[in-house]
């Protein structure tokens, strides 16, 4: 018997080689594999960066410059890691929007989806604390703004913030613990991803038709492994454009100024992948309310399997939903644009309208849409 069929090794066989895959999945289904590749790229480059980085307020900024200038191929390592975070979010956002379009969250894959939302939350925390490590101005002030969100908690908020900081402000103790957690969390994400995969393979992959595909499946290897490999070649070309030709396009120039707790940059913006959530935070003219809405904007995704109000999964058979889906995609892009703009008119009102629509879509429109669709489906038939 071949080694791969023996216990322990057969896990690889069952999930990556002989795994029965629906024949009709198209390139939108490449992004799960791609996100796994992104995680591996981040972990590998991160381990090597940690060999040269110093987590101390006096040395962190300098050690990053040391990596860029002195370490052999240090610039490549850091640019892959920094842009890799952006690539990871691009891939994961496409993966999520594929799930939204084809109803991948619907029964029987609710658990897969919920684990996915947990992975998204872990990724957001990991990326945020990773951005603090270079100890530039945006690192410090981004960390200050985001950790202060916790101070909105009634009564104990301020004590929790002081505990998070390990002092009176974002300082050396904060930087050290962020480094420790930034090293730990990717492995937690890796473990959660394995659960995500195992839960998916329990019920079997979805497909563009959103129907039960058990009658028409082929083994993952060679068919879909080859398709995934073609996808990763295209992805690496895209990735390389940023790493080699425009490595600082997605970053903020202020982060090349060393952190200074006495001067706040005129305009604090988070990394692009947080902008929609940041826009929601700023659109609510109430501190605690803003924080709750921002967190709920992510948590509401986890409720989708129960918000979903129809038996049909794929939007190929839901024309009204298809239009609404693109309106939601546009809403997220608008929120992203507003998140990068200063707090002034007309951006405030546009942000508020988009934020209201975001929650209206998930909490009112989607739950009611199923009834409308059922009514239209049976209209004048009887």
């Amino acid at each position, binding site marked *: 018997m071949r080694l791969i069929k023996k216990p322990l090794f057969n896990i690889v066989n069952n999930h990556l080689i002989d795994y029965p895959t629906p024949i009709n999945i198209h390139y939108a289904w490449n992004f799960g594999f791609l996100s796994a590749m992104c995680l591996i790229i981040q972990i590998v480059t991160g381990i090597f960066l940690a060999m040269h980085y110093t987590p101390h307020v006096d040395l962190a900024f300098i050690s990053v410059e040391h990596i860029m200038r002195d370490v052999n191929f240090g610039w490549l390592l850091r640019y892959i890691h920094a842009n890799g975070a952006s690539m990871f979010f691009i891939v994961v956002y496409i993966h999520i929007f594929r799930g939204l379009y084809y109803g991948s969250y619907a029964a029987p894959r609710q658990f897969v989806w919920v684990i996915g939302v947990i992975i998204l939350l872990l990724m957001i925390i990991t990326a945020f604390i990773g951005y603090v490590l270079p100890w530039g101005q945006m690192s410090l*002030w981004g960390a*200050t*703004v985001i*950790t*202060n*969100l916790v*101070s909105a908690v009634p009564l104990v908020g301020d004590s929790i913030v*002081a*505990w*998070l*900081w*390990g*002092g*009176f*402000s*974002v*300082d050396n*103790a904060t930087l050290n*613990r962020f480094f420790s957690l930034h090293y730990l969390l990717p492995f937690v994400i890796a473990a959660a991803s394995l659960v995500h995969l195992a839960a998916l393979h329990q019920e079997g992959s979805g497909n563009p038709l959103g129907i039960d595909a058990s009658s028409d499946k082929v083994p993952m290897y060679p068919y879909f492994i080859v398709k995934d490999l073609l996808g990763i070649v295209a992805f690496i070309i895209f990735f390389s454009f940023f790493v080699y030709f425009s490595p600082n396009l997605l970053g903020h120039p202020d982060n090349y100024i060393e952190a200074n*707790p*006495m*001067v*706040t*940059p*005129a*305009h*604090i913006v988070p990394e692009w992948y947080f902008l929609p959530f940041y826009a929601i935070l*700023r659109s609510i*003219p*109430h*501190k605690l309310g*803003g924080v709750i809405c921002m967190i709920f904007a992510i948590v509401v995704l986890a409720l989708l399997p129960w918000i979903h109000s129809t038996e049909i999964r794929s939007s190929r058979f839901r024309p009204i939903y298809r239009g609404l889906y693109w309106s939601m995609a546009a809403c997220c892009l608008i929120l992203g644009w507003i998140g990068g703009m200063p*707090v*002034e008119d007309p951006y405030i009102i546009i942000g508020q309208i988009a934020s209201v629509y975001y929650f209206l879509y998930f909490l009112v429109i989607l739950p009611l849409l199923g009834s409308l669709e059922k009514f239209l489906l049976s209209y004048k038939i009887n």
Partner: protein
Amino acid sequence: METPDYVTPLETGYKDDYHNAPHFNTRGDPTKRAFTYLVLGSSKFIAASAARVLILKLIYTMSASADVLAKGSVEVELGSIPLGESATIKWRGKPVFIRHRTPDEITLAAKDDQAELRDPQLDSERSVKPEWLVLLGVCTHLGCVPIANAGDYHGWFCPCHGSHYDVSGRIRKGPAPLNLEVPTYSFIEDDTKLLLGGETQR
């Protein structure tokens, strides 16, 4: 020997004689149960308190360490701050604004006591001596450093999310919920120096 009545024979689910022997089905002597529960219950209590201590110690390690707490107080020479100017001092890793207010500013601040305030506080409550206004330079919204002599109320303006503070550092407009915090301080050495930290003496 007679079989005690609390033995229930043949309920083990095993088919062999060993598992079905009478001693295997004995539920124990009921008179000893109180002692058994005492031992079990107290062991569980000890295990739970050990877990609690372990978790708490780990949480405590993340609180401010002794060296961070030791940098609690700073002395400031007041003679170097001319009338109408403000100085920014670093204290506990945060900026502190010390403003030498002009009589006009003090009058304006006192007049604003009557205005509609989100976090009502009299100007006299916010300063020990009206000419010296001492504030923590941290916006109460999300912790940015406000800019002096800016905003709609001639006080401070936070560039991050647009909060306006008046000449007494009170929140007037924007998302911040509270006035700029007044740290504890006292005047020392015949009022020539200001000591940040410690107790406020009026």
